[in-house]
């Protein structure tokens, strides 16, 4: 686990290229049961992060996470901007005066996801990105408890993300724009679930590669 935020530019880069590669697919998802802007929103945020990635990587972890959160908050817009902003700001808070290591990261991520749940008044099973993020938070904690190796850790996190993403397909949405569609949303994966799964897997891959 990296002790400094120097990885941030490559993490941002990893997330951005995962979104870029799947841009059409994710846009199609948001167009089907949302309003089609999700990729554009994320890309605006990732561009803003890329521009600041160098300066952010000079900060300590809590400050860096807070800055990432603020940057996303003021560039992404939409539902996802407020939620991702909330995630990172809460993670920064959770790591305040704490060392960056795997247990603390897992804990901070879990607290970030809790903050998102509060912000979105949402939980598992509502056909949102939380159906990916909650299982990922659990997987991170469980990996710590079981002291998994990095490759195993990456594998479990990625698989949790993917299963969560897939689980949204047959749900009726009760939060976000897709909730307006009722039954008509069944059969479509949630765009935010797919994009968060893509970014999490990409970030896990980068972390794994760096730790090899």
């Amino acid at each position, binding site marked *: 686990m990296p002790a400094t935020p120097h990885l941030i530019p490559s993490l941002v880069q990893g997330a951005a290229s995962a979104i870029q590669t799947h841009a059409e697919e994710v*846009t199609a998802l948001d*167009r089907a*049961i*949302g*309003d*089609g*802007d999700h990729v*554009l*929103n994320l890309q*605006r945020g990732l561009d803003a992060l890329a521009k600041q990635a160098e300066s952010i990587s000079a900060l300590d972890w809590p400050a860096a996470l807070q800055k990432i959160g603020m940057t996303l*908050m*003021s*560039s*992404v*817009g*939409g*539902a*996802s*901007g*407020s*939620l991702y*902003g*909330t995630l990172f700001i809460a993670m920064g808070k959770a790591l305040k005066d704490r060392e960056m290591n795997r247990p603390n990261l897992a804990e901070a991520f879990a607290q970030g996801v809790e903050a998102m749940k509060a*912000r*979105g008044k949402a939980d598992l099973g*509502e056909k949102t990105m939380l159906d990916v993020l909650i299982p990922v938070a659990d997987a991170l904690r469980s990996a710590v408890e079981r002291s998994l190796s990095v490759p195993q850790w990456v594998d479990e996190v990625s698989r949790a993300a993917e299963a969560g993403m897939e689980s949204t397909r047959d749900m009726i*949405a*009760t*939060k*976000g*724009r897709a*909730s*307006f*569609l*009722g039954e*008509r949303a069944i059969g479509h994966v949630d765009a935010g679930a797919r994009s968060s799964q893509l970014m999490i897997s990409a970030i896990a891959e980068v972390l794994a590669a760096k730790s090899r």
Partner: protein
Amino acid sequence: MKKFIDTIDGFLDESLRGFAKAHADIVDLSPEPRFVSRKAPAKPGKVALVSGGGSGHEPLHTGFVGLGMLDAACPGEVFTSPTPDQMLAAAQAVDHGGGILFIVKNYAGDVMNFEIAAEMLDAPHDSLLVHDDVSLPENRGMGRRGIAGTTVVEKIVGAAAEAGYDLAACKALGERVVHATASMGVALTSCTVPALGKPMFDLGEREMEMGVGIHGERGRERMALGSAGEIVDYIAAVIDDELQPQPGQPVLLHVNGFGGTPLIELHLMYELAHRHWSGRSVDIARSLVGNFTTSLDMAGCSLTLTRLDEEMLRLWDAPVHTAALRWGC
């Protein structure tokens, strides 16, 4: 995609700059973070109304900034809610000492971003949620969207704020107006977000999408294209179910175009809607016909009915001087 665009990236900012120049007597534009604020001086202690939402719905909300209506509006990217820093900067810029009322259309993104801004704001503040779209059931998921009824809410509450109502009174009045308002829309075509370059959904030559929102989201159901009369009957029945307007009840009837439907058709819809309600002895005391809450270039329209009481009627008639609505001054 056939639009007047110079560069996709500059689309929104160039349009906003044009708007601000064309109405330089009414508004100021802050480019970064983006918000539009009124030029007309306000009495100290006046409640400041701040609204906003995704762009692509013009004249909503920027066209409603000015005397007797909004103090500021925050335009997000096209169909994307604005960000908390915009709302915070706008609120701080127009704080007249009477507190801030945020007027928020009920969408997850708008609700959360305004909530974050509110949490960051030091001044007294409250939020008013608009959720007039009766094409949706009231208690499912997020509830109902805010659509064209927003214009009615912002006009009436704007007049109240101008008249010196305090924050709590503005909010209470706003909730009464929201409660008394029901809207529902229908799309004949989809619309095209510039950055996406193709329509949000496909509609056959003989299809329409009933109960649509204003972001090119699909609606409540896909139906065979109906005549204007059939469409009015369908929508009016849903609105009546909700509002149950009694004979003699004074109402405001608002026919709102989605951007691609010309006035000649909107007036025809108004005639048929008027026939529906006046045929039930409802008193159509005020009306508003035009493109106010649009979805880019979508062809379609919505009907909005508001049950008016005397206070609302008086406030509707009060002077307003904005880019999109102007009377009494």
